[in-house]
Every structure is written in C-alpha cells, then in structure tokens.
C-alpha cells in the first residue's frame, strides 16, 4: 500500500497528506477507482487543492503516451498525462501549435480538459473544450465511456471544466492549429487607466491573442494602468531573412531556477510596487510591434523553474475571477481599490477579455477576468473574503483551478450551476468515487 505523504498544489498551500499512486494502464486506474474515492492529478499545476485527493490521489504521469497524429487534420490522440510541453516539442517543428494554451506549458492534457483552461485567444476561439473531439472517461462503475460534442454530450459538457469530478480522463483527441512559424508578432499598447485598457480590448476583438498586464498597486488617476499585448502568429514572410529558412527554430531560452525558498519578507508592498513601476516603464519603452518567440510569449514564467518558491515557504494564493461584461468596469475598480488599500503585493496581475460561455460548469463567461497572486499572509483571508463579496455583488464567478479558499456558500451564490453539478454527481455515483479536498470544501 502506498504511504500518505504531504502534497500541495502549485501555490504550495494548503498541504494535505495524500497517497499518490501512478497507474500505467486503464485496468490499474480502474482498480484505484474501485478502491476509491480518488481524484486524478496531472502535473500539479492547479494552484490550490483541486488535485489533492484525501486520502487517495491518482497521478496520471505514467499514462503519458501519444497514440496517433493525423497530419492532414492536425488531430492528436494522446493519453491524459502527456505534457503540453511535449506536444509543442513534437509538433511545432511539423507546423502545429496547441489551439488553446494556458500560461504554462507544464500542464497535462487531462488537466487542461478538466479545468477547461483558457488562453489569450479565449475571446475569439473559446476554451480548451472547443479543441476536444472526444475523450475517454473512466466512470464510477469502472466503465470507460467515450464522450464528445457528438456523443454522450451531456457527460462531455459536465466533464470539460468538471475538475476531474465526473471521472478520470484517460485519453483524448484534440485539434492543433497550423502555424507557419514559431514566432508571434506582438503589439504592446499602454493604457493609462482601466477604462482605456477595456476600450483597447473592445477595439481589438479581432486580434487572435490579447491579454493585459495590470498594475494592481497604482492608485488615483493611474488606477488600473495596463499594458495591453496583442499577438498574431507570424507568417513566414514576416520573419527577417535570416530566420525564414528555419521558421520553427527559436533560440533556446535560458533556464533560471529558484533552487530554494526565498525568505517571505522579500516580497512586500515596496518591492512589489518597485517591480510594477519598473515593468510599466519597460513596457512603455517596448511599446509597438515586436517579434517574440512562442516560449517567451505564451510561457514567460516557465523559464524560471520553481517560480512558486519566490513566495517562500508559506506559499501563496491565486485569485482569479471573471466579471460579466456590463458590470466589469465598476467591479474591477472596486477590486483594485480593495487590493491597493490592503497593500498586499500582487506580483502579477493579468486582465483579459473573455468570450462566450460554453459547457455546463466551466469558468469562462463573456466579460473580464482578473488573475493575481498574493503571498499567504495572516491578513490574506480577510482580503480575499472582501474580494469574494465584490465579485458576488457584480455577478462574477471564480476559477476553480486557481482556488484554494472559497467557501461552499460563496460558490453556491456566485455560481448557481454548482447545485446542478453536485446533483449530477450524486445521481451518477461520481460523488462517492471522485473526491478532492476542493470538492469537499465546496460541497460539490
């Protein structure tokens, strides 16, 4: 029997004792489910407790084989534990790129589907679920059911964004997008305040990629000042001459790593403010059009391995909400007021326009999403509770892949779909078989 060990998400908080078994075959996975309850865990990049199964967690890291690829359609069939980084390594040189990607490439295929992750193209192309042709799901009774937009549709729509709570995703077929190069043409547009940032997003709805870095510590007239970054896959004829011959060859990025926990005090309101100001000024200087390699563009933090250690041993909490379009600006203003007042160093604030809502329990809705992280300090629970209230008052909701602190009551109030999700779980037997620390906390 596997022994229980401390396990945490990427935010390193909370930590729970879990057994972590890594089956290699469907039969081994089914045996774990039968002995259940369990929750599937990919590469552990969910920030909170989504992938902590207490006592039992099922790691998909040994189910990590690619099965087939059709170069005519760009459809890849792979096991759930395959890393996005491996998909890019394998297929970018052949002219294919993930149709939807989150901000790190160290996630698994199964994890991306379970969280229905979104990327910088959500406003146009939708979330991960849009790229899935089918997936094989290990159900509570041990059967494997193939579901997709055209078969077992209800199960598919609950599963994509269902945080692993409908079953274990074993394998899937996803569509990649053809690209001519490994480069992105990035346009950076400074926005002096929040209204301007929102206006820029709305004016640039046609851009393939759009995202903004937002200075959550700026106050007064500069509140919400942002660098809005738009991007398009570069065509071959847009590359400089010396790159045209090898359009997918980008310089290997230097890898830094944070080999030990930095002291918690290093990140405080002064250092965060100084960092944000420096970033803003660098952004102003770098405004305009630039050619950026895919790795730096999509995965800026991946080059710093173990960046979660900059917050020290106490860990950190991510906060990500989405506010509906009509309430977004006022809601965001109130959130920024709250953050600035608390003076909690938000190292990274990311603002993004989201597109359509799809699927039954996944995060996105048309509106604006704000993501930031906070060191886990004593004052944090109070700040988060105040922010939760603001989100609720403005009709917004929370991203479960980042959540570690919501209460069941707040979830029920902000996302009425959660009641139907919980009912579906109990009716299908999933409630007794697939359980995470998060699903228990949120009474899902």
């Amino acid at each position: 029997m596997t022994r229980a060990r401390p396990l945490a998400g990427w935010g390193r908080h909370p930590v729970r004792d879990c057994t972590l078994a890594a089956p290699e075959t469907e039969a081994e996975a089914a045996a774990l489910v039968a002995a259940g309850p369990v929750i599937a865990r990919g590469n552990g990049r969910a920030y909170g407790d989504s992938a902590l199964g207490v006592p039992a967690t099922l790691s998909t890291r040994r189910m990590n084989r690619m099965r087939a690829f059709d170069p005519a359609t760009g459809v890849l069939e792979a096991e759930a534990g395959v890393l996005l980084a491996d998909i890019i390594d394998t297929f970018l040189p052949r002219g294919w790129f993930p149709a939807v990607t989150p901000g790190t490439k160290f996630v698994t295929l199964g994890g991306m589907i379970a969280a229905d992750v979104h990327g910088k193209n959500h406003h146009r192309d939708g979330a991960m679920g849009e790229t899935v042709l089918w997936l094989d799901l290990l159900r509570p009774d041990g059967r494997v059911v193939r579901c997709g937009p055209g078969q077992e549709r209800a199960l598919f729509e609950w599963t994509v964004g269902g945080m692993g709570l409908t079953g274990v995703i074993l394998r899937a077929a996803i569509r990649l997008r053809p690209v001519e190069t490994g480069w992105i043409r990035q346009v950076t547009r400074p926005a002096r305040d929040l209204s301007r940032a929102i206006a820029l997003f709305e004016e640039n709805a046609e851009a393939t990629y759009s995202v903004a870095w937002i200075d959550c510590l700026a106050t007064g007239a500069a509140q919400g000042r942002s660098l809005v970054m738009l991007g398009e896959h570069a065509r071959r004829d847009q590359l400089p001459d010396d790159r045209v011959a090898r359009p997918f060859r980008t310089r290997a990025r230097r890898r830094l790593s944070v080999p030990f926990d930095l002291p918690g005090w290093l990140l405080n309101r002064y250092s965060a403010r100084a960092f944000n100001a420096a970033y803003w000024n660098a952004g102003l200087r770098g405004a305009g059009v630039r050619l950026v390699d895919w790795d730096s563009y999509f995965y800026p933090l991946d080059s710093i391995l173990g960046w979660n250690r900059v917050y020290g041993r106490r860990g950190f909490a991510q906060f990500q909400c989405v506010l509906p379009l009509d309430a977004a600006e006022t809601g965001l203003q109130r959130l920024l007021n709250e953050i600035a007042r608390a003076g909690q160093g938000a190292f990274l604030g990311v603002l993004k326009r989201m597109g359509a809502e799809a699927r039954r329990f996944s995060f996105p809705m048309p509106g604006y999403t704000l993501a930031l992280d906070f060191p886990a300090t004593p004052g944090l629970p109070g700040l988060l509770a105040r922010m939760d209230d603001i989100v609720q008052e403005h009709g917004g909701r929370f991203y479960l892949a980042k959540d570690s602190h919501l209460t069941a009551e707040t979830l029920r109030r902000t996302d009425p779909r959660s009641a139907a999700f919980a009912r579906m779980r109990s009716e299908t037997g999933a409630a007794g078989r697939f359980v995470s620390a998060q699903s228990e906390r949120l009474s899902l």
Partner: protein
Amino acid sequence: MTKPPILILGARSDIGRAIAHRFAAEGHPVQLAARAPEALEADRADIALRHGVEVSCHAFDALDHAGHEPFLDGLPELPGIAACVVGLMGEQEENARDMDAARLVMRSNYEGPAEILARLANRFEARGSGTLIGVSSVAGERGRASNYVYGSAKAGFTAFLSGLRNRLSRTPVRVITVLPGFVATRMTENMDLPAPLTAAPLEVAEAVWRAHAGARDVVYVRRIWALIMAVIRAIPEPVFKKTRL
C-alpha cells in the same frame, strides 16, 4: 547517416522507457524487449510518433536462458547498443526469510542480465562493434542489512560488467556501467527517499546518453553518490557492521 538501433532489455520499466526516448530523440531506432511485448505497443506508437524512428517490440524473459538465442536471432538486426535495465528489488524482509523470493531477486539482478549481455558481447565482438550498457546500482557497493539480497546481486552484476569491460578493452566493443542511487520509479514508489539524492528516470537516461556519447566507463547518476559510496566503502567493517544505513 543512419544511426545504429538501441535494444532496451526491460523496456517496461520507467528507466527503460526513459532511455528509449532519450536515444530515439537522437535518431536511434529502438528495439523494445520485455516479458509482455503486447504491453509495449503503446510505447512503440509513442516513441515512433514523437521521434520519427523505427520501433519494434520483442518478447524477452531474462530468466529464460533457452529463449535468449532465439530472442537475439529474432531481432530485426543485431543492435548497435544494448541497454539492460532488468532488475527486481523485492522486499528485504521477505528476501531474508523466503529463499524462493531471494532466489528470484538474485537471478533477476545478476544471472539474467549478465547472461544476456554475455551473449550480446560475443556477438558484438564477432561483429567488431557495439556498446553494452548495464544499469546496476550503488546498492552493490557494500552489503547493508536493509537490502543485501538485492545489493549482492547488483554487486555481482557490477563485477561482471567490470570484467567484461576488461576482457573487451582491446576490441572496439564498449561496456558502460551505470550506477544510479535512488531513482523515483515504480520500484521505489513506497519508499521515503531523500529528494536531493533521488534522481528522476529522465536523469538516469540523460546520464546513460552522456556516457554513451562520451568516454566514461562507470557513471554515477547524481555525482554525489560517488562521494557517498566512497565514504561508505571506507568505513572499517567492525564499525560498519553496527551501522543502520
């Protein structure tokens, strides 16, 4: 230039899979060998798809001596490189009391691996080229109460590789001994291993690749192990016998 194939003996193990991927990434065709070749099919497709090399699967049981020659004859071609990662740790408690269990550990870590590499060595010598890679263990450097059955068999295997290398040193055939310390694999899944001393299977594969590309005869995976084992070997027996390592 086409690269010579690598034969992986014990291809279902985490280390075997990792080595297969590492060499395939450099363009080497791969021959995967394990007891249940049908279970290798998923790996065959995976390696072929990722790296665009030829991959074949073969039934191989290290303990079935009679099957060794037919197995080698059945390969698409004699490989240029053969890596043996066959091994079985068992439970020391059980190995100390149950001689059937102990025998299986001894045979799986010494007899089987040594025998198949001996046969390959002879074929490589006759051909005049080839590299043999034996994945042994630092556990073979000194017998300890916690795993001496496994350790003693690995000691035998390490000595065998050393002798084989000595014999073949005037031929073009190379013999490489790989000595991992702790590795995070299925075999060690339930053990509490100290993270700084524990390598991932990918690191073992990388060490094997670098040994192959370079000129080293004996490689420790995580160099700190060379130091640790030097210290452990230097402890006088009257002291060592009282330790709990």
